[in-house]
């Protein structure tokens, strides 16, 4: 029986109807990993024995007739910059290659409480700095859709794991597009929730004013289930905005569908989608352009009204993003001195030499480049830092104006499809331009999701939906409608042929 590609709800049905045991199901996934992982390189560690032990425990629970938690039966993976107690947390860096996490990240605790079982830790660009997972100290992650290509980054391992069917979802982090961009390259969904919705406790900081934990999954329904579990409030350390009642995203998604069906309405009837002209002025690959045209057509078929909108300060967003994140990285990575933890240089005469050598040897090229540039920005007389902070404010204003007349905003997630390793990494500017379309939602803290929308038979392309603060329900409804519309569109095209 092929159990790959099932939603969590379908898996739970199979398990409770005793069509398959959890142990059998998990063995299938582990077997798949054994067959394909050497070609992909999604994982930095796999906890096989623990998965099987937990699978057997789940089978016993089902035998006893106990009810299942929201994520029971689901396997997931964790980006290796998020702490899982007792496991290595390397951040893809030689600096932390032997670091053992002393506690669990808040989102990991919540997922485990709901019954999710971790398969292991996934590869990433060092300290989440990069857009192709080529900057991992350990290996390059390949794209499961085409092994010759990169998986994107920095959550490249997470996106590749979901695309290859290694579990139902993956937990990643997104500072400037690190979930959405690899999701687009690998043909899966990736959400960066509103900044402050999900606790960052246990996420190793890169630029904490923008770092956000999010989800990569194969379908919108699973994404809603997981988001429901990891959303705040989280009272222990105040890493979320606590003045907020939790939302039942999964229930609301089901109600939305049911409601539209019962009224005989199209899924996006009455919904206005803003198309920001500045995003579409950036040159795009032909495949991305045609996927965008088809997607906008699909929106219209589902009843949405498309309106052209403007975000005038978008053109400064990439510069502002890099100024702010590099400066934050300078202070957040200052803690890696090779004394209390992390790489320690073997021969040093003084404490200064120890710190400089430990950092020089422990950090990779991209991290060092950003730290040096961050210090350069901090030392400039005509400082760019205040201007970048101001761009952030102006951009928030631009978005709020757009949301006065639009429910959602639609853009491409990236202007290219996945590329071969080495194509962009030689020139740091080329690599940083890959974030051009995702950083605006990061700077403003708005929730955004990348939805696969490529034409059949072509390389994956992602379409990005952005909603207003804490409107994740609307965002997921938009993503589900797009998912449904594109399936319908492909079916119609097939019939026409």
């Amino acid at each position, binding site marked *: 029986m092929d159990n790959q590609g099932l939603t969590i709800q379908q898996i739970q049905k199979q398990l409770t109807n005793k069509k398959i045991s959890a142990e059998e199901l998990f063995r299938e996934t582990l077997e798949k990993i054994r067959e394909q992982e050497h070609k992909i390189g999604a994982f930095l560690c796999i906890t096989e024995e623990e998965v099987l032990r937990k699978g057997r425990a789940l089978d016993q629970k089902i035998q006893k007739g106990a009810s299942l938690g929201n994520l029971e039966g689901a396997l997931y993976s964790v980006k290796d910059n998020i702490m899982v*107690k007792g496991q290595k947390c390397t951040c893809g860096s030689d600096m932390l290659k032997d670091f*053992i996490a*002393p*506690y669990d990240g808040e989102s990991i605790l919540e997922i485990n409480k709901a019954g999710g079982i971790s398969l292991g830790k996934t590869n990433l660009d060092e300290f989440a700095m990069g857009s192709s997972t080529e900057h991992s100290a350990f290996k390059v992650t390949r794209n499961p859709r085409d092994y010759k290509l990169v998986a994107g980054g920095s959550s490249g391992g997470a996106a590749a794991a979901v695309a290859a069917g290694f579990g139902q979802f993956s937990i990643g982090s997104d500072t400037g597009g690190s979930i959405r961009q690899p999701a687009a390259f690998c043909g899966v969904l990736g959400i960066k929730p*509103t*900044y*402050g919705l999900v606790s960052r406790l246990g996420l190793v900081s890169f630029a904490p004013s923008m770092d956000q934990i999010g989800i990569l999954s194969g379908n919108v329904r699973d994404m809603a289930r997981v988001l429901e579990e990891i959303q705040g409030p989280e009272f222990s*350390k*105040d890493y979320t*905005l*606590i*003045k907020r009642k939790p939302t039942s995203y999964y229930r609301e998604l089901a109600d939305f569908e049911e409601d539209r069906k019962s009224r005989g309405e199209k899924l996006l009837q009455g919904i206005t989608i803003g198309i920001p002209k500045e995003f579409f002025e950036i040159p795009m690959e032909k495949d991305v352009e045609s996927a965008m045209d088809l997607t906008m057509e699909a929106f219209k078929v589902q009843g949405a009204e498309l309106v052209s909108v403007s975000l005038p300060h978008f*053109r*400064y967003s990439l*510069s*502002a993003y*890099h*100024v702010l994140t590099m400066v934050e990285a300078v202070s957040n990575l200052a803690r890696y*001195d090779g*004394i*209390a*933890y992390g790489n*320690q240089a073997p021969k*040093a*005469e*003084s*404490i200064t*030499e120890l*710190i*400089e050598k430990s*950092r*020089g040897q422990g*950090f990779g*090229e991209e991290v*060092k*480049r950003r*730290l*040096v*540039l*961050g*210090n*350069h*920005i901090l*030392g400039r007389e*005509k400082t*760019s830092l205040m*201007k*970048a902070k*101001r*761009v952030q*404010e*102006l951009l*928030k*204003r631009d978005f*709020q104006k757009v949301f006065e007349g639009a429910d959602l905003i639609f853009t491409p997630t990236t202007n290219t499809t996945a590329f071969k390793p080495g194509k962009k990494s030689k*020139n*740091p*500017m080329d690599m940083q331009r890959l974030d051009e379309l995702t950083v605006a939602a990061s700077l403003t803290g708005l929730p955004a999701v990348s939805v696969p929308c490529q034409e059949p038979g072509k390389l994956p392309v992602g379409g990005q939906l952005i909603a207003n*603060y*804490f409107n994740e329900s609307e965002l997921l409804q938009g993503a589900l409608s797009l998912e449904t519309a594109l399936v319908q569109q492909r079916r119609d095209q097939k019939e026409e042929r």
Partner: protein
Amino acid sequence: MESFERNEIKNLCRQSGLRLKNKEITKLQGDLKELSGYLEKLEDIQVPEVYEAIEEGYWMHKNKTPLRKDRVEDFEEKELLRKNAPKRNKNYITVPKVIK
């Protein structure tokens, strides 16, 4: 586009707490020249427009993140923390001598 002297890069490395090899410094000279070019784009922003935005105070949302209480909390897994130290002596982390 700004250009960077070797000594300037060495200074920035010192500020960054990094000891780099000569070839790394050469590479950084080129990279930084290119990267600083697009940071200059921010200079185009008109200052009055900028002040207006700050004065209006466009906050992300009305729910501000509350400040947590500044309190000391006991961490139960101290041994797990100590295990990560590269050099230790019983319950202490060993550091190189600062004063000779």
